[in-house]
């Protein structure tokens, strides 16, 4: 009786463990029609493989057990059979055809682009994502960057890790539920890949190429994914977080963002105090520059140079601005003119020239940057 009890509790424990692992053991079913189709397809192929494997390995192990010399088995002499060879060529081919049919159907369904309700451009950068919302004429209405927010202390094991360790960002991509959203995926530097497992979609972000991807998500919620193409140092640290909103809530948010973009455009024409510049500059620096040039400005030479007391950060100011706008061709130093607006550039230049002991003693205002941009850079 006691043994039965022990047995039952062990079994129960095992069941519990396997239940709690169920999510981690298999592909995610996801929340879209496509992701469910993909999951079903995955399970079909999986079970076909399991059955074939069970038969093939079953025969093999039966033979291993029974056709041993130690079991007294004498070797037979046969060594060919055309009929068998034909059979095990034809039968697998038929099984493959059976697998190919649903695979083809799902693939065709995935390629059903067009008829979308809205377009978002997804642009990969080393090591963050930019989301640009496009209007019906494919003009940009507003855009923002989305980068990892997990603190270094958690990554370096100095603080306890949060629930969404490495899967949390400052600005989530927001899309409406139940509408067909088309993503135009591309990259500014190296190849990245944009993947949201729960939507069942993944596409490479290739510089110079615009890849199409679409989804319709019925369930509002927060969905997380990661970059899945090696893109350099912080490839493991550029997650994707999508917030799917109720349609009305999304529309309200969208209108507000369009208004805010107009306000920001205004702000560029303002004159700021040096304190404001330094404060904003530090923020811009930590979001856009710190991954390479480091918090103390010392960089990681020789890959990423120090900014402390260099010819650029203490020399002619306009050259400094131009370097940040244009980047350095053929290096990891990107053309930030395409990512930052004039106010942000002005602030970060001010910051770099007056932080870590640098003291150029000048002031850089958004207008100074606008003059150098001459309209050829980021249209906000």
């Amino acid at each position, binding site marked *: 009786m006691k043994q039965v009890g022990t047995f039952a509790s062990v079994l129960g424990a095992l069941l519990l463990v396997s239940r709690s692992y169920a999510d981690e053991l298999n592909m995610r079913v996801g929340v879209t029609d496509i992701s469910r189709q993909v999951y079903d397809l995955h399970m079909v192929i999986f079970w076909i493989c399991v059955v074939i494997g069970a038969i093939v390995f079953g025969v093999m192990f039966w033979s291993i057990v029974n056709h*041993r010399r130690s079991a007294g088995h004498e070797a037979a002499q046969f060594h060919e059979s055309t009929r068998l060879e034909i059979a095990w060529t034809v039968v697998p081919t038929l099984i493959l055809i059976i697998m190919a049919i649903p695979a083809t159907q799902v693939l065709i369904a995935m390629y059903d682009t067009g008829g979308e309700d809205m377009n978002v451009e997804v642009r990969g950068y080393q090591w963050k994502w930019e989301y640009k919302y496009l209007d019906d004429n494919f003009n940009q209405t507003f855009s923002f960057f989305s980068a990892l927010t997990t603190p270094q202390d958690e990554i370096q094991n100095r603080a306890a890790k949060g629930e969404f360790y490495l899967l949390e960002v400052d600005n989530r991509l927001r899309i409406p539920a139940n509408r067909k959203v088309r993503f135009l995926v591309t990259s500014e530097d190296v190849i990245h890949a944009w993947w949201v497992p729960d939507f069942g979609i993944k596409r490479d972000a290739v510089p110079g190429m615009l890849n199409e991807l679409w989804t319709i998500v019925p369930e509002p919620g927060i969905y997380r994914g990661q970059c899945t193409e090696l893109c350099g140092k912080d490839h493991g640290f550029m997650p994707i977080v999508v917030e799917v909103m109720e349609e009305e809530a999304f529309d309200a948010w969208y209108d507000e963002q369009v208004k805010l973009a107009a306000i920001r455009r205004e702000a560029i024409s303002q004159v700021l105090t040096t304190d404001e510049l330094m404060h904003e500059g530090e923020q811009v620096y930590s979001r856009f520059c710190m991954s390479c040039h480091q918090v103390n400005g010392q960089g990681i030479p020789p890959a990423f140079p120090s900014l402390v007391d260099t010819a650029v950060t203490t020399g002619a100011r306009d050259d400094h601005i131009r370097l940040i706008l244009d980047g350095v061709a053929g290096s990891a130093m990107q053309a930030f003119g395409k990512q930052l607006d004039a106010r942000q550039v002005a602030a970060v230049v001010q910051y770099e020239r007056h932080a870590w002991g640098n003291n150029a003693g000048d002031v850089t205002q958004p207008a100074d940057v606008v003059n150098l941009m001459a309209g050829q850079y980021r249209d906000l």
Partner: protein
Amino acid sequence: MSEVIHTDHHAADYSVDQHAGGQHGPEKGLARWLFTTNHKDIGTMYLWFSFLMFLIGGVMALIVRSELFQPGLQFLKPEFFNQMTTNHGLIMVFGAIMPAFVGLANWLVPMQVGAPDMALPRMNNLSFWILPFAFGIMIWTLFSDGGGPNFGWTFYAPLSTTYAPDSVTYFIFAVHMMGASSIMGSINIIATILNMRAPGMTLMKMPMFIWTWLITAYLLLAVMPVLAGAVTMMLFDIHFDTSFFNAAGGGDPVMFQHIFWFFGHPEVYIMILPAFGIVSHIIPAFARKQLFGYDSMVYAVASIAFLSFIVWAHHMFTVGMPLAGQLFFMYSTMLIAVPTGVKVFNWISTMWKGSMTFETPMLFAIAFVVLFTMGGFSGLMLAITPADYQYHDTYFVVAHFHYVLVPGALFSIIAGVYFWFPKWTGKMYSESLGKIHFWLSFIGVNVTFFPQHFSGLAGMPRRVPDYALQFADFNMVSSIGAFIFGFSQLFFLFVILHGIKSGKPAVARPWEGARGLEWTLPSPAPYHSFTHPPVVTDAEVHG
């Protein structure tokens, strides 16, 4: 017609030998190894070199697995982590597996076709001695300013061009050297097999290892120049302002991937076809029964080789191809399962109604059949394009290719080493030590790589130094397995050294069921394998 050529050739060889005073032995000291043109010496050097590379690549894998033992960054900076995965992959593929197969070919091709040596012995020396320099350069760049290769073993542009560390130029040079070595090696193998077979050994009587290597050598000849082309274009993009792969200059980063995988997919078959050959010798030997379906085995290898040229873009399902392209590459990839299945069925039919014993080579060969087939199943799943979108660049892929490479390619090499060890050294290894090695490896490999299927399906990307918390358990298991596996390969070294030093003397045919001309030679085999062409009988080759 070919008979005439054979006899001429051997007559010529024979007279050279007589000038040198008949059966002369090797030179003494370092000169023997530096200047040797003997296929056995060169084969030995290839094998030891590949073992050294295997240990170095293995240490890199263990560094990676230590970092991945727990979430968070423990020991490594991400930039160094990337260098470790990249160099691990490059060294294992180009430094461990490929040279090991060339080493086996050097030892076995002359003995199995009944020739005195390889056809082009001086080139043979050169193709080996290039390798230490190539890998020396590549490993040395790890210590240079800015570090060594960090762009993955697939070195996709523009990460490997515009955004690469300065040392990439040395990497390109090293790849050129490896390519030159492989091309010379394969020319030599082709020349030996086509010209130096003993009279009477027609093509359809050749041992399976010879067949698989002949086809592999042609694959190498076809694709190594493609790889050389790819790295040369990189070199031009980096130093001469061309824009082959630079989108800003009108180039196309995706073209790099097409070129790379046109090389890369045949490359993975280069690492598995000789393994098929080895296993096709070992299973019949220990089942004491002829290989089942010899002809279809040959045709299957040939079809796999052909198909391997038209499936490359299955590595690129997510780059954004038109639907028709996706479908083509999905179907062609699925098709490879057919000839691969034929091979597995034939091996099992060979075992069927045999009289089996389970010495170490046989254990490794059986593990090969089972675990390679599992890698084949996950390969089939990866071929299904819509599902591949979910698997691609996750740990599911890492699990897949390690199942085909480690218990696949690597186990076949280990099996081959145990199988032919008596012939090479004249000694028997210790069977009980060999079995311990097998079980440790078998457990290690599964504990390491099986859980990676799960972490991949759950969504863990590959090539990341840190991961979200839900992947923690499987990564821990995987790291423990990796250390078991790593340790068991040091044990392998011990088994081999123990066998060389204190093994019992081996007879000419230590495995009663083994067939093949090599077993007609004494153990250890004489310095020049067959100075007189042997008589080819149906008892020794496929009849």
